[in-house]
């Protein structure tokens, strides 16, 4: 699919003038950029979201996940800790695990039966000593040097993160105090229950997904459903906040009364005469401390934590190539939810996912964005709403969090 641009052209790429208020189209199309993103963002020292601990309740429980372009196995080890192993046999690189989830005592590669324990250590391999004195591995073969690649793992309040490198900061430091407080607002230590999964494959660059959740400007304009039902409005008391490096962010919104005013007059999207016949679809109940009704958090580089009214989900970004990514949704609630709250979460899920009355606007917008971007690598996107700098803002009329993202991105990518 990708029009091949040799990696050697990367050095010739020059970021347009305007700093983070300009984003060149080639960051969304160039396979060499994508390759560098895999190296420097997805398989470096950053903490990547893997899964929820409640998905692996018992020793031996495992599930596969995709981190960047790597397939990993998250497994509840015999010692009670979560291990994250790359699904690639140390022998011939075959995927050792075919099931997407299950329970295992060990992982046996189907090809030559190399066998690994739940920590990824190579336990043994057939004919290591040969057969009747013939063949076998060399005498100096050391099984301990041929385990499955094992990632650094950390958990917080039931959420599992892993890193391919050697992170020089804890998850808490990585998030920073401000972002950690928003994270802990949803993950307050209560046991979580997974309600189900959705997954969609979107023909656009993965960064457009992140930008979408860092862009409150569009929410009031594109999402007529949100606007019409007052779930997210430009004129509501709101905020855009980031960590000190601009890599993580939150959009915070508070629900207000729906009335026609100066702001709605600027929103062609406001529909005054539209009401639901079955009100149960939108029957939000306040369940978190404070007055925020929506908190959408992006955690660099692969996680969006969605709290839109009572629908909670982890959205995991799985980049596939420069022009394609998967968005993997894990919907959850709390173990102590009442049946009514559980039902409410199922109903409000109608707003989210590939058929979401809100989020389908986004997947379609990303498809159309990429189609526009593909026309001209040399053009650049303009990101000047709210200024050209990167600062936290007590309002929604800003693209500051996109600028924050690209400020950090350029540093990491050396662009």
């Amino acid at each position, binding site marked *: 699919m990708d029009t091949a641009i040799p990696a050697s052209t990367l050095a010739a790429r020059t970021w347009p003038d305007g700093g983070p208020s300009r984003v060149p189209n080639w960051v969304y199309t160039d396979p060499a950029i994508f390759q560098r993103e895999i190296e420097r963002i997805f398989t470096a020292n950053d903490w990547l979201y893997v899964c929820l601990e409640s998905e692996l309740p018992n020793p031996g429980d495992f599930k596969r996940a995709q981190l960047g372009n790597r397939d990993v196995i998250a497994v509840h080890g015999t010692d009670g800790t979560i291990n994250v192993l790359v699904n690639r046999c140390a022998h011939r690189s075959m995927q050792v695990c075919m099931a997407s989830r299950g329970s295992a005592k060990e992982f046996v590669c189907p090809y030559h039966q190399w066998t690994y324990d739940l920590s990824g250590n190579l336990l043994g391999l057939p004919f290591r000593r040969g057969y009747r004195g013939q063949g076998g591995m060399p005498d100096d073969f050391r099984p301990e040097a041929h385990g499955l690649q094992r990632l650094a793992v950390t958990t917080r309040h039931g959420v599992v993160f892993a890193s391919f490198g050697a992170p020089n900061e804890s998850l808490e430091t990585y998030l920073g105090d401000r972002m950690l407080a928003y994270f802990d607002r949803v993950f307050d230590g209560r046991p979580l229950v997974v309600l189900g999964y*959705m*997954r969609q*494959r979107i*023909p656009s660059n993965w960064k457009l997904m992140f930008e979408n959740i860092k862009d409150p400007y569009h929410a009031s304009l594109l999402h007529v459903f949100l606007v*019409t039902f007052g779930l997210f409005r430009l004129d509501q008391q709101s905020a855009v906040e980031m960590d000190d490096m601009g890599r993580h962010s939150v959009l915070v919104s508070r629900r207000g009364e729906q009335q026609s005013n100066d702001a709605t007059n600027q929103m062609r999207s406001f529909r005054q005469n539209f009401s639901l016949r*079955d009100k*149960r679809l939108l029957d939000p109940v306040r369940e978190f401390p404070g007055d925020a009704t929506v908190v959408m958090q992006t955690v660099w580089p692969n996680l969006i934590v969605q709290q839109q009214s009572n629908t909670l989900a982890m959205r995991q970004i799985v980049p596939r190539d420069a022009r394609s990514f998967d968005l993997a949704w894990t919907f959850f609630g709390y173990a102590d939810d009442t049946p009514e709250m559980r039902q409410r979460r199922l109903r409000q899920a*109608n707003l989210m996912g*590939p058929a979401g009355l809100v989020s*389908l606007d986004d997947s379609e917008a990303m498809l159309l964005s990429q189609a526009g971007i593909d026309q001209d690598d040399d053009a650049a996107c303009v990101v000047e709403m709210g200024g050209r700098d990167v600062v936290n803002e007590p309002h929604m009329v800003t693209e500051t969090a996109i600028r924050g993202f690209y400020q950090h991105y350029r540093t990491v990518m050396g662009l």
Partner: protein
Amino acid sequence: MIAIAHGLTVDPDLRARLADLYCAYDNLLNDGELELWPSLFAETCIYKVIPRDNVEQGMPIAVMYCESRDMLTDRVVALRETALFAPRIARRITTAICLRAIEPDGMHLTASFAVFQTMPDQPSELFLCGSCRDRVMDDAGTLRFAERVFIYDSTIVPTSLVYPL
């Protein structure tokens, strides 16, 4: 054509009416007559589009989930009035429809479905396929769905599911 599970005896007229209901359902959606689509459901009903993966794990989250004819209508109005999406043609095929059982809560049927999608200036592609678990009731002389559950086989939806299955 409606197949009948082994051991079940069904009035040929009922069998024809069931076939008509399924045919009407497909034709309505193929013709884009979304506004009429809710009329094929009972006033209190369950409509779900759910990945097979969730069903196998006993997980309830569905990508579309409606509990009444009104909620179906709300989805249609929301789609027409509020959603942004690229134009497309969705064409559905339902086959292997089988009446499995007749219970006090209605007739239980299963079927297989495929939906093809055609985007502007693109070749037609298979969009989703899977199975249906349905319950049909006689609503004062008219057959209507009291329950329609579409279970799609892939975990992945290509981009977005715009029109209802």
